[in-house]
């Protein structure tokens, strides 16, 4: 499944250059969520190059990226995998509008100590 429109959108939204990837795998070597992601960061990059965006969107891997920038920091080619993953997450969100965490559910997960940032990230970044 190739979708070049979606691919262009990913590149535009992320501002990243997946084509610069030389397939060394350093992003996946350094990723703290590697074992939680069914599609690893290096595969994200390669699949974007190949235009396989729908598959990436169907995967739940995006929800496990911590946006910790370890892959961005250590990538020798300046590819910025985290930005690519985020772009897919954003596109997914804009396309479906469904949310992972609904306001009604909040009461069940919230505790008094949760900092605001964690809630914001849960709503905005990870709601799908």
């Amino acid at each position: 499944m190739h979708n070049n429109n979606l691919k262009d959108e990913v590149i535009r939204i992320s501002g990243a250059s997946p084509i610069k990837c030389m397939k060394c795998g350093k992003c996946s070597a350094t990723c703290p969520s590697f074992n939680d992601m069914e599609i690893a960061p290096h595969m994200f990059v390669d699949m974007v190059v190949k235009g396989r965006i729908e598959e990436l969107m169907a995967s739940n891997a995006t929800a496990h990226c911590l946006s910790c920038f370890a892959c961005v920091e250590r990538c020798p080619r300046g590819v910025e995998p985290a930005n690519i993953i985020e772009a897919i997450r954003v596109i997914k969100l804009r396309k479906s509008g469904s949310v992972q965490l609904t306001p009604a559910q909040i009461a069940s997960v919230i505790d008094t100590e949760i900092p605001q940032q964690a809630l914001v990230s849960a709503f905005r970044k990870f709601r799908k």
Partner: protein
Amino acid sequence: MLKIGVFVCWCGSNIAATVDIDQVVAAAKLQPGVVMATGYQYMCSENGQSLMRKAVEEYKLDGVVICACSPRMHEATFRKNAQRVGLNPFMVEIANIREHCSWIHKDKEQGTIKAIALANAAIAKVSLNAPLISGESSVTKRALVIGGGIAGLQTALDIAEAGFEVDVVERQATIGGNMAKIDKTFPTLDCAACILTPKMVDAASHENIELITYSEVESVKGFVGSFKATIRKKARYVNEKTCTGCGLCMSKCPSKKSKNEFNLGLDNRTSIFIPFAQAIPNVAVIDPQSCIKLTRDKCGLCQSVCEVKAIDFTMQDEIIEREYGAIVVATGFKPIEVDAFDELGYTQNKDVITSLELERLMNAAGPTGGKLVKVSDGSHPTDITFIQCVGSRDCTSRGKEYCSKICCMYTCKHAMLIRDKYPDINVNVFYIDVRTPGKNYDEFYRRAVEDFGVNYIKGQVGKVYAEDGKLIVQGSDLITNEQIFIKSDMVVLASAIEPDPSAKKVASMLTASIDTNNFLTEAHAKLRPVESPTAGIFLSGVCQGPKDIPETVAQAGAAASKVIGLLVKNKLVTSPCIATTDELLCSGCSNCFNICPYGAIGYEDKLINDHGIRETRRIAVVNPALCQGCGACSVACPSGAMDLLGYTNKQIMAEVDAICKR
């Protein structure tokens, strides 16, 4: 007005089939200055050439136009032919009516019209030609080699063998360069010292070679055939001629805490020292930074024990000035600093080392006597992990965008040597690609895997950290798609190599160009790979780009042959098609100077007689030995003071004029 003769070649039917020769001849005769025109079947044949010679003599021609094939084919032939009858070769112009006309057009009428236009353009140009005479410049029969590593030594030896004198200037106290630090060489695994040290001895003992060590070239002036170099010979504080290299001074020196550069700081040395056992010259040198006598005016123990009284604390730097006909750059490389790759823990863990450090650890003459031990505690390692491409193929600010070329092979060598000597050690290698083009290279890599059991992992390492007395190497294995954690005792980083920092300074001194990575640029990647675009400057070894030892030696020999080819000449003939200044027009604005890629334009304050006004003006002067005739300067010059002989503004405009006339 010139008397011009026009010869139109049929080239059998190659031209004659599409171009009406008679019409071209008839049209040429109508052009101003043309006193004769004729057609002939094959102008390049001996008969054709003699036809031209006869006509030159009979009609007293002072310009000739040949309408024939491409000038790239026979321009030289016809110019030589003109010379045989005393006509200046640059009074011959070619109109290309074959490749640019008859061969591409089918319509004879169109072909003929175009051939006439091309002939007219050549006639217009030749009528503005002036006889040009090639210049000559002398050649100093001595070469300078900058850098005394394997590249510089090989070049020097080859030049010296051909009978020319060579000076090798080496910045360090000994020649030998990086290769002297290496233990074994791939793919044959012979010991580096066994092949390098005999060459060092040969160079030292060769009657045509002078080794100027512990010295740097400070400035170079002049041009091909006659360079003048200023060399600073730094004070060693030890008389090179009297020191016997006995080493007594070293055993007495109380200052023993300086890092031993030769062993990359893995052990310490004294303040007075001989860099390594086979150093050439085998003479001590004093490190002025740590010497107690030189820093605090105490001690002086070495001086008192030296039996030949070679030590002189008052020694000063010495300036040597020499003339050379050719200069070879062989400044070599250094591994990059890997501190910036701190996820790999080089600055945080002693047992994370670079490949060159591993060479010293495995070298029998190294700090451990060749016994491979952990740097941290001297114990025997059981697991070693290699990481390739540290800083190579890296387009971020901390690395180099290019492939360092040698790391795949030396990592393979290291892995193999370790497995051979210590079969109990497990060796893992993280790689992105294994690049082994070269004779017996891939076989070598396969042997490491198949015969020596080295474990290659396709992937990269994200983090190296210490835990439970081991180094944990966290990496990816792209084949199994896993994130893996390998426990290791040592981690070896295959750091990228970069040009020696001196290369940039040397290049600008020589007006030789360098690329964005500070490698020196060759004149042509395929046709002139060992020459710099600046005439008389040659390139040897890694200063031009990453190379292994076999390639370096081959290139060093090639550079030497180019130098010999230059030095063997008594005079250099310079092309007369060069830029020239009209001194009355030049205003000295420097536009031409700024644009010249060869540093061929300089400025002189000249006394000018401008229609009776005598005054000193700043005038651009073209050095005919350096100018290559590209003409960029003539366009940069707004007043038209700078022009290109053979392709003057007026000549080209005359061609334009002839072609555009309807």
